[in-house]
């Protein structure tokens, strides 16, 4: 008799445990939160068949590796009108000083930091105009001008490498192509102007009245 009771109690126990197990795994509440879902599902992640290549193939890009991030950025030198600079700047800048040569780049006004901090040669290399240069004088290729910006804007640089600053071109899918600093900011005048919003919803105003 006692044994029978024991079996019965055991069975009730089994069933409760079983039903608990089943109910916890029912479809809608499979994951407690979206972060759990992302974590669980991305463990088995393998590449998607969707790629960005179809949408970015017309772009001329170069591959860069910065820290743990490797991605593509648009090639720059081909975009600059009248590159290479040495086609005009045949002699070093120092020799041009004081000569009565024609003024060039009259339309460029430097509005970047203040004049105590920056002037033309903070970035441009006076001896080799086809190159930029870092604060310490290391030559920097025009294609990698972000290396100049990152000297001061280190926080933005970190965000840009990760993808929180700047823009991913055309496609969300890998391989990633990101716009580089100068694609959005004019390096001589990096601040965005204020402007009017592109639209106004007159219907909304009517509905509110």
């Amino acid at each position, binding site marked *: 008799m006692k044994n029978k009771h024991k079996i019965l109690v055991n069975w009730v126990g089994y069933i409760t445990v079983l039903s608990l197990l089943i109910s916890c795994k029912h479809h809608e509440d499979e994951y407690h939160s979206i972060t759990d879902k992302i974590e669980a599902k991305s463990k088995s992640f393998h590449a998607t068949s969707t790629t*960005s290549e179809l949408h970015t193939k017309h772009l001329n890009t170069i591959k860069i590796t910065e820290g743990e991030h490797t991605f593509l950025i648009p090639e720059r030198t081909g975009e600059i009108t009248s590159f290479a600079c040495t086609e005009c700047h045949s002699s070093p800048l120092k020799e041009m000083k004081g000569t009565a040569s024609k003024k060039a780049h009259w339309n460029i006004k430097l509005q970047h930091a203040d004049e105590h901090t920056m002037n033309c040669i903070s970035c441009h290399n006076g001896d080799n105009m086809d190159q930029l240069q870092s604060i310490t004088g290391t030559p920097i290729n025009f294609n990698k001008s972000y290396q100049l910006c990152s000297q001061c804007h280190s926080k933005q640089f970190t965000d840009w490498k990760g993808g*929180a600053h700047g823009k991913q071109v055309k496609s*969300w899918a890998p391989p990633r192509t990101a716009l580089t600093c100068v694609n959005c900011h004019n390096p001589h005048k990096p601040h965005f102007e204020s402007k*009017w*919003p592109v639209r106004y919803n007159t*219907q909304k105003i009517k509905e509110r009245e």
Partner: protein
Amino acid sequence: MSNTTKKWFSLNLGSRKENASSSSCSCGKKEGDCHSADTSPQQKDGFDQVFDVPMDRRTAFKKLTASLLIGAGAVSTSCSLVSGNESKEKAQIDWEEQFKGNYKLMSEEEKKATVERLARSYELRTGKTINLSSQGPEENVLFGYAFNISKCQGYMDCVNACVEENNQDRNSQMQYIRIHEMKDGKGFNFNEADDNYYHEVPAEGHFYMGTQCFHCDNPPCTKVCPVQATWQEEDGLVVIDYDWCVGCRYCMAACPYDGRRFNWSQPEVPEAEINKNQHYLGNRLRKKGVMEKCTFCVQRSRAGKNPACVEACPTGARIFGNLLDPNSTIRWVLENKKVFRLKEDLGTEPKFWYFMD
């Protein structure tokens, strides 16, 4: 598609398919009586959901008040000697469209068929072709969105791009995205925020945040739909079957984020401005009395492109990507920036995060 897998009652007017039945009966079956049951085992759907009880044809037509007009039109054109092949085809398409099932329950084949019909119907009506897709979700993809509130300047390029991309009604100036101008230091105070400002931006002492459909992982809107016309797809997109929606607007009431929009009138887009690259669940032309909302531009995102708002943003405040890809930029943002979501306490689990520089 073969007749045996059809889920709707077929008129078979003889113009749409070459292998038209020679039977005089309009149900299109060559053998047996019109109402012998289909033997193929399948989910009850579309026509079957209404007609799964045995009944004679008279009762059937009585039940079909809403469809009578189409039926009558179809029959009259099919009997008429003067009406051309095109109008017969149109009537056939209208008939089949009327009785198609819920998109959610359709097989790949059926999805393709309805998309073909809709594209052909548009061609017959306007003489123009559209590219209508039924592309499904891809495995290993879960779409997510991040919005940088320190970057947004309130230019509203995103709103314009969205309206153009998604063929939204121009008369009512419907827009999925709202950009809220908020006072610094007041938190997210939607009562004092202005989502229809018109002055130079960014305005001093204000910040801007955008809202749209957040594609919640636990969406309240899909649960209240009495006809299951809205649901969450495998890649996380919350979508609507505009042909199955009855326009009750329960979902609109259930959404805590004002993410849904209703068509109070027949939406109109000037022919020249229609985006002809469309998706069944996305930007295809809607009708009066149905719900619509942001779909993360399903016609673009499933093709690998960024949504129109992301592409249009001049400040890079909008980030879109695959949450399951550990190397995606959206994942980097979630893991490295301080992110938060709107009304997180509701447990709706939006897949739309806000962050600051």
